[in-house]
């Protein structure tokens, strides 16, 4: 009997749902995807006493429209408000399309806003479930996020695409990283350490072959890390410091290191993998020092000189040169972090993981301990592959 009743029940239920679906609150609201506009990048800047939010909406040209179908168009819109949510709430007022934060992948914070208080500009996005886990955060260095976004759009480039490509570039050079909002929120919540946020800026460049006529254009490029202390921008890690930060925190991928060989010509080694061992030294409950031992494996990717460097002495010179260069960079980033007055190399996390019980005794004072801590760094480099399949042309022997 029940079986016989099921199909009519389903049919009746379907009819009921069809008839009432639009009005029933029980079901989610219906909205056509074509009514939406995809906003992938949001920029936040300080504007007077309030906030300016800049949206970058990407659109594909509809099929049949002049220009190749599938090519992108970028729309830039700015809204001002007393708070971020105040400004964001205006984004749907002046548009034929609905915009929501579901597609926002990237958030740019202008340098001024970061110096003011980065946390207050992030609060809205950390509360929003659609952005909390998926959004990547960057600091716009030396420029407002609006300028950066406008410049990139003016160069006919999709900011989201540029930022995605930065991630790829970072993997080859280890000079930056992608940082999710939720991870940044975790860093900011830990008062004993600095939040280290990837920074981007723009550079003049030219694309004669692409555009057809050479002209200066600006494009976004990674530019080290912003050092956030007490929720405010305190400084930056540049170039070598940036990749040293990635090495010390275990996030570096491949990176080139150029050192002079015995003949005085440069050779480039590519660090492909490395291992970080970490030791702590205690005097009772007092942390007296730490030591990093970094063992790197490298390839020789290029040699300017013609002299045969594949001798025991030549190889050792290259290995020692690379190790020394890395050590200097690593010490420099540790020194810079100490100078800026907060643990910006995630040293506290390492100590906690190594000695969780002892860490509990010093955790509250870590901000004072870190700048004075003796940090010893030892780097060993081993050339594991030479890529020297046969004797080079013109080798001097």
């Amino acid at each position, binding site marked *: 009997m029940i079986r016989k009743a*099921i199909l009519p029940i389903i049919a009746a239920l*379907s009819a009921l*749902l069809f008839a009432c679906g639009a009005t029933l609150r029980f079901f989610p609201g219906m909205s056509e995807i074509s009514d939406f506009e995809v906003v992938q990048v949001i920029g936040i800047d300080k504007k007077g006493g309030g906030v300016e939010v800049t949206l970058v909406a990407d659109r*594909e040209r509809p099929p049949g429209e002049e220009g190749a179908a599938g090519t992108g168009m970028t729309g830039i819109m700015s809204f001002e408000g007393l708070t971020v949510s105040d400004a964001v709430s205006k984004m749907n007022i002046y548009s034929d399309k609905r915009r929501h934060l*579901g597609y926002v992948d990237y958030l740019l914070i202008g340098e001024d806003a970061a110096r003011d208080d980065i946390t207050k500009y992030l609060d809205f996005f950390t509360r929003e479930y659609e952005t909390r886990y998926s959004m990547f955060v960057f600091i716009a260095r030396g420029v407002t996020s609006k300028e950066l976004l406008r410049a990139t759009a003016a160069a006919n480039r999709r900011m989201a695409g540029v930022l995605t490509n930065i991630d790829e570039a970072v993997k080859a050079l280890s000079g930056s990283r992608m940082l999710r909002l939720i991870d940044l929120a975790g860093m900011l919540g830990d008062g004993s350490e600095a939040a280290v946020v990837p920074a981007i800026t723009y550079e003049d460049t030219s694309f004669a072959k692409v555009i057809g006529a050479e002209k200066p254009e600006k494009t976004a490029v990674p530019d080290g890390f912003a050092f956030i202390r007490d929720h405010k921008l305190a400084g930056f890690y540049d170039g070598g410091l940036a990749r040293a930060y990635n090495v010390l925190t275990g996030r570096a991928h491949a990176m080139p290191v150029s050192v002079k060989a015995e003949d005085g010509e440069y050779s480039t080694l590519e660090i492909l993998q490395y291992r970080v061992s970490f030791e702590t030294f205690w005097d009772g409950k007092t942390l007296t020092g730490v030591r990093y031992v970094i063992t790197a494996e490298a390839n020789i990717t290029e040699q300017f000189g013609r002299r045969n460097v594949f001798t025991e002495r030549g190889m050792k010179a290259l290995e020692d040169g690379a190790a020394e260069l890395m050590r200097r960079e690593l010490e420099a980033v540790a020194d810079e972090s100490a100078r800026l007055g907060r643990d910006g190399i995630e040293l506290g996390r390492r100590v906690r993981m190594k000695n969780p019980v002892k860490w509990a005794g010093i955790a509250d004072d870590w901000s004072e301990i870190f700048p004075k801590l003796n940090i010893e760094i030892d780097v060993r480099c081993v050339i594991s592959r030479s890529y020297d399949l046969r004797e080079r042309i013109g080798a001097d022997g």
Partner: protein
Amino acid sequence: MPKRKAATRGRAKLGDISAAGLRERMAYGDDVIFTDFTVGGCGAAATAVYIDGMVSTVTVYDFILRPLAAGRALSHAETARDVIGLVMGGRVFHGRKRLCLAPEEAEEELLAGAAVVIFDAAGAAVAFDAPGFEKRGVTEPTSENVLKGSKESFVESLRVNTALVRRRVKTGDLKIRELSVGRRTATRVAVVYVEGIANGNTAALVIKRFESADVDGLVSAGQVEAVLYERRDTLFPQALYTERPDRFVGNIIEGRVGIIIDGMPIAYITPVDVHAFLQAPEDYAHHFVLSSMFRIMRYVCAAASLVLPAFYVSVTTYHQEMIPTKLAVSIISSKQGAPFPTYMEVALMLLAFEALLEAGLRLPRAVGQAVSIVGALVVGQAAITANILSPGVVIIISAAGIAGFVVPSQDMSNASRAFRLALVALASVGGLFTTTLGLILILYNMCSIEIFGTPYLAPFAGGEGVRMFDDTVTRRAWAFKRRRPADISPEDSVRQGAGASGKGGEPQ
């Protein structure tokens, strides 16, 4: 036979059959031929009756009428009763003959294709088997073609079909139980199984079901399925049909029961589970890894065919965040200017797709192809160009349609098409929430089906739960398929020995 003679000798007539009576009963049957003649020697009057076109006239003239009318074999007979006695005793040699005493018996034999000789004086008739109707020769299968395998298919003649089966199963254990079903059509139905392998209860149940079928006739597959199917409240097929004798035999020796119906070039197999409808005959011709790969692809395609349109409606109408950004931008751009909401576009396209399929099936082949081309290419392209439909919808419906064609069973494919439309309707109301609800109901429906005691989703749900990947979503190597499917409860569960591969168990 002596007993019958003794019993009837005391009566004036053996039965109550008369040529006039049969003539009256078959009035306006212009194809029924009545030929009066006198039996040679004794001079008894007789009437030969046969249906033109259903018997071999050569057989009737040369091997029935000639010996009776002109032969000397019956010269000693004095009465019609003596003639019948001699004929039944073998004086007139014939392969199969039967004495009919009641008019209904004579009529039944006549309609089955026999030549009936009526002896009015004895009130009885002798039916001589003389089949000679035109029948189609064994040809290649049309819907189950394979590259590696037999090229024979069933035809409309029951006897040819049973012969095709018998030729492949050379054992006395092969039982072919013939029944007559249908009050008007008296269609011959053969229930085929291998005794000692097939579950006896299942075979008995199948026979009983046909025996007890009080129907006008069995002239269409739907009527057969109405008799055979246990559940009426589901769209899912409950018996596998095939036009391939080798596939039929493969299932019979696995322990299933087959049904061959006179007049149909297909045969049914029962009990089966859902996996049977997603398996193709050629699965058993390939290496088991390849077969498994193709099967998994079929399952994925079947699921995609069922769910893809509803999923598209759901994500584009309710859950836009689920779509990757680049794809979302592309879909948004493709939908610019399209006047209909997505669910309506999808529903319209699905209906158009169904219409094209129907048109392609009903029309002559050449015209059908033209309809497909005009419908799919010209009208489809024009609809996109005119911005009436968005390309995304066309792609989704086409993909779902093509994925549906991958399902080997047309019955399962048809069920999937109906559910697909229902899921789109549900998706348009509440997105993935209602779509999931619909899928749960479909799954519930499938779980509740049992075919002669075999759960539909066995061995994954409701069955023994053993040898789950022997011959379901994947196929094991022949060498390791030593047991028959447990869920159909075969009487002999051991299929083969350890040396099945011929190479000491090496997978094949």
